[in-house]
Structures are given as structure tokens and as C-alpha cells.
């Protein structure tokens, strides 16, 4: 195995009691003691995550918007400077290369934050369909923090002495001598900001936000928070094996784009015909049967689906998960049986995520 990469926060996190795990080739904290405490800190106050492993791509030029709209599932040409949009990089088959947020940072400049595990796949994909000379992979220059929770924005504003941007907006900011980007985004189901900062300056900001009361949080809480909120994770709900519509990400595909885009033929056809399997959300009240990735779902004796992610949801108070199920089981809220260690346990199927911030 190749050596795991470390973010600049490694030492500080170890000092805060982090237990590290391998995530997408990075040595990242899974928890600083208790996943449940970290989860609650984010739902009730503010938690902070190191997301320095994530990738940053910068696109420039007079044709940047047009090129992006060829590979990205939504429009970007209509974005105002400082606005962003979540969407997908699609294959010709309508399956998903990555999910990402693209921000317009200038008239002819766009900034994208992508999954750590997909940086090289994204770069190769964009190069293949749109050429090489108009974008730059800046992932090695940037680190990033996600400050999340009902008081996260207030905490950030009092620290930075600047108003946070609107939801899905991004702003550049000079904090002392540090030039950083702040985006009003996150992956927890709570309000918050993501702070994209030159790698050499991230430790100071991490420490300052901890000292102002943000709880350090790891990947364990990041997973339980995103599963409750129904956010997909690449490699689980999203992949090159499932189309955007099957992954339940049809809402993030703009079928009204004028010019043809990668995946438009495949997805338009599938939209018309209807999908044969689709993402659903599920709960299990039986604590001995918490859904886990790979568990099979049954209707009577027929296997009709499989779990893609599952955790115990500390806020929901039961097992929660996501699954891909066959037609017609994704179109009604019903019960299915989940196979757990050789026995069956009933789970409830929902069409909407289980947690929404108040």
C-alpha cells in the first residue's frame, strides 16, 4: 500500500485526540472520542471538519462556461459572480463521474470543489471531453474546513468580522494576511460555511475556531450526519454503475440546457421510459438490525434491492440508510425485509430524507 497522505492539520488533530483512519488514500480523523457527541455538536451548536483532502479545480477563459455545461449536469452560464451550484459530472451513459459544487468566481472564472477520491478521474474526464489548457488542478495548494451547525455562521462571522455569503454563495476574504474563500455550503443537513484556505494557513484558523467553541469532528459524524440528511456519497449512492436518475439525483440534472451535454441522450431517454431501480431512504427501529452497506432487501422471497449506506442515526434515534430498490418498490412508502446476519428484519422505505434542519 502506498503511504497515506496527511493534511496540514494532522498534528493538531492528534493533539485533540483524533483516531485516524484511511479515507481515499488520506489519513483522516474518524472521531475525536465520540461520534455521537460530535454529531450532536453539529445538530445543536457547531462542529468543525477537516476537508483538506477534497479537490479544487479552477476553470478559466471566455468559453469556460460553455465547456463546463458540456460535462456538468446543470447550467453555470447564468450564475452571478459569487454564486454556486451543486451538480454532477456525467458520462455519456448518464452515470456519475463525481458530484461537486461549481462557483463562479469571476466573469470568466469558475472554482469547483470535488471529492478527494475522484480528483484524478475528474481531471481525466474533463480533459477528454473539453481539453487541457483551460483548467488547473489546485488541490495541492488548498486546504479546507467545514464549520457546520445552527450557530456555525454566527461563529464564523464573529471570528472573521465579515458577513457570510448567501446559501451556495462564495466570497473571497482577506483575514489578516490570509486570502481565503468562504462558501455557504456543507454536507451535514445544517447551515454552515466551508472555508477554503491556503494550506500553510489552515492550522491557525482551525485552532482559532476550536478556541471559539467549535467541536472537532471526524468522518464518523460526517457520515452519520449526511446519511440522516440523505446526502449521497460517491462510491456508495453515486457511481459510474448507476445513472443520475437511478441515484435519485435527477433534481440536479437540468434537462432545459440548450446545447447537447454529456449524458443528455441517455438520461432524456431514461426519463421518458422511467427507471427500473432508484434510490430510497430507509429506517429500522430494531437496534439489532441497523442498515449497513451491502445488506439485501427483500419483498417476500424476492431480492428487490440493496443498502448503499447505513448508520445508527443519533438524531433520528434509529437505524437510517439509503438503498437502491427495484420498481415498483421505490414509488411507494412501504415496508421491506432486510437480511441481517441470516435473519430478516423489517425496514420502512421513504421517498424523502429522514432529517431536515428546523
Amino acid at each position: 500500500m502506498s503511504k497515506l497522505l496527511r493534511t496540514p492539520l494532522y498534528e493538531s488533530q492528534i493533539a485533540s485526540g483524533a483516531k485516524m483512519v484511511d479515507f481515499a488514500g488520506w489519513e483522516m480523523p474518524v472521531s475525536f472520542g465520540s461520534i455521537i457527541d460530535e454529531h450532536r455538536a453539529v445538530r445543536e451548536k457547531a462542529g468543525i471538519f477537516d476537508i483538506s483532502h477534497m479537490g479544487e479545480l479552477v476553470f478559466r477563459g471566455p468559453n469556460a462556461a460553455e465547456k463546463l455545461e458540456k460535462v456538468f449536469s446543470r447550467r453555470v452560464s447564468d450564475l452571478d459572480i459569487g454564486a454556486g451550484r451543486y451538480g454532477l459530472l456525467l458520462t455519456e451513459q448518464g452515470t456519475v463521474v463525481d458530484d461537486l459544487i461549481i462557483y463562479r468566481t469571476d466573469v470568466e472564472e469558475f472554482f469547483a470543489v470535488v471529492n478527494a477520491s475522484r480528483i484524478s478521474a475528474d481531471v481525466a474526464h474533463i480533459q477528454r471531453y473539453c481539453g487541457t489548457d483551460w483548467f488547473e488542478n489546485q488541490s495541492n495548494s488548498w486546504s479546507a474546513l467545514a464549520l457546520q451547525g445552527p450557530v456555525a455562521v454566527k461563529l464564523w462571522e464573529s471570528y472573521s468580522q465579515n458577513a457570510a455569503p448567501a446559501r451556495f454563495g462564495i466570497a473571497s476574504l482577506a483575514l489578516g494576511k490570509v486570502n481565503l474563500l468562504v462558501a455557504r455550503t456543507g454536507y451535514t443537513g445544517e447551515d454552515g460555511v466551508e472555508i477554503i484556505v491556503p494550506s500553510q494557513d489552515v492550522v491557525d484558523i482551525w485552532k482559532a475556531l476550536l478556541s471559539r467553541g467549535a467541536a472537532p469532528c471526524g468522518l464518523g459524524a460526517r457520515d452519520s450526519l449526511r446519511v440522516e440528511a440523505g446526502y449521497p456519497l460517491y462510491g456508495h449512492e453515486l457511481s459510474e454503475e448507476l445513472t443520475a436518475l437511478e441515484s435519485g439525483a435527477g433534481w440536479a440534472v437540468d434537462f432545459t440546457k440548450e446545447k447537447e451535454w454529456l449524458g443528455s441522450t441517455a438520461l432524456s431517454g431514461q426519463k421518458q421510459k422511467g427507471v427500473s431501480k432508484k434510490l430510497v431512504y430507509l429506517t429500522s427501529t430494531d437496534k439489532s438490525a441497523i442498515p449497513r452497506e451491502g445488506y439485501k432487501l427483500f419483498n417476500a422471497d424476492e431480492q428487490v434491492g440493496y443498502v448503499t449506506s447505513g448508520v445508527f442515526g443519533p438524531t433520528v434515534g434509529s437505524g437510517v440508510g439509503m438503498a437502491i430498490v427495484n420498481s415498483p418498490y421505490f414509488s411507494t412508502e412501504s415496508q421491506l425485509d432486510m437480511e441481517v446476519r441470516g435473519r430478516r428484519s423489517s425496514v420502512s422505505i421513504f421517498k424523502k430524507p429522514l432529517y431536515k434542519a428546523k
Partner: protein
Amino acid sequence: MNIPNDLKYTETHEWVRIEGDVATVGVTDHAQAELTDVVFVDLPQIGKKLKRKEPVAVIESVKAASDIYTPVSGEVIETNASVKDKPSLVNAAPYTEGWLFKLKMTETQDMQSLLTAESYKNLLGG
């Protein structure tokens, strides 16, 4: 990492305390840290006869389900009702209040296959 000297251990991170022919079993401090927050413990039925290294219990944490293997063969004589009610005891006190089950041992030679505290410490890499 806490590894009490008076207990025996397994490669699968269970501990066992042997008093006469009764063995008390739980998971180690290392195991509870790996499992993260325990939310449910599925314990074997009293009276059930278990064979060494068999998966006999399951610990569900926030992020994963893990099998627990019995370090010795025997018949289940008691299970810890407290961890049923308060699974977080496995995290908070893995060697004391967080014990899982007690067995009446049937195979005394099983004891020879258990690890000492020092061997277990070496297994974890010092």
C-alpha cells in the same frame, strides 16, 4: 491503551477473566475505540453452548456491526443486563461494567491458547 495484566486476550480483541471454571468475556479498550460509539449489544441466550472462536454476540456501533467471538468454549450462565440497557458502557468501561457474558468453561485446555497482556500488547504493536 489500557491492557490490564490480570486478564487474558484474543487476537480478535476480546478479553477473558478466568475464576475457577467461570470465564467472563468482554471486548478490549482497543476494540471499543475501533468500534466507536456502541448503540446495541446482541448477547447469547443463557444456557447456550458455545464453541471457542464461534461468533456469539454482535456489537452495533454508529458506523458498523461487529461480531464478537468467544475466547473459550462453554455454556452461557449469565449475560450483562446493564449493557443491554446502556450499550455505551462498552465504551466507557470495557473491562468492568461493560463486560458481555459469563461462561461455565467446558474445555480447560482452551486457556492455553489465550494471549497474556504482554502478548496482546505486542499484537497491537507495543
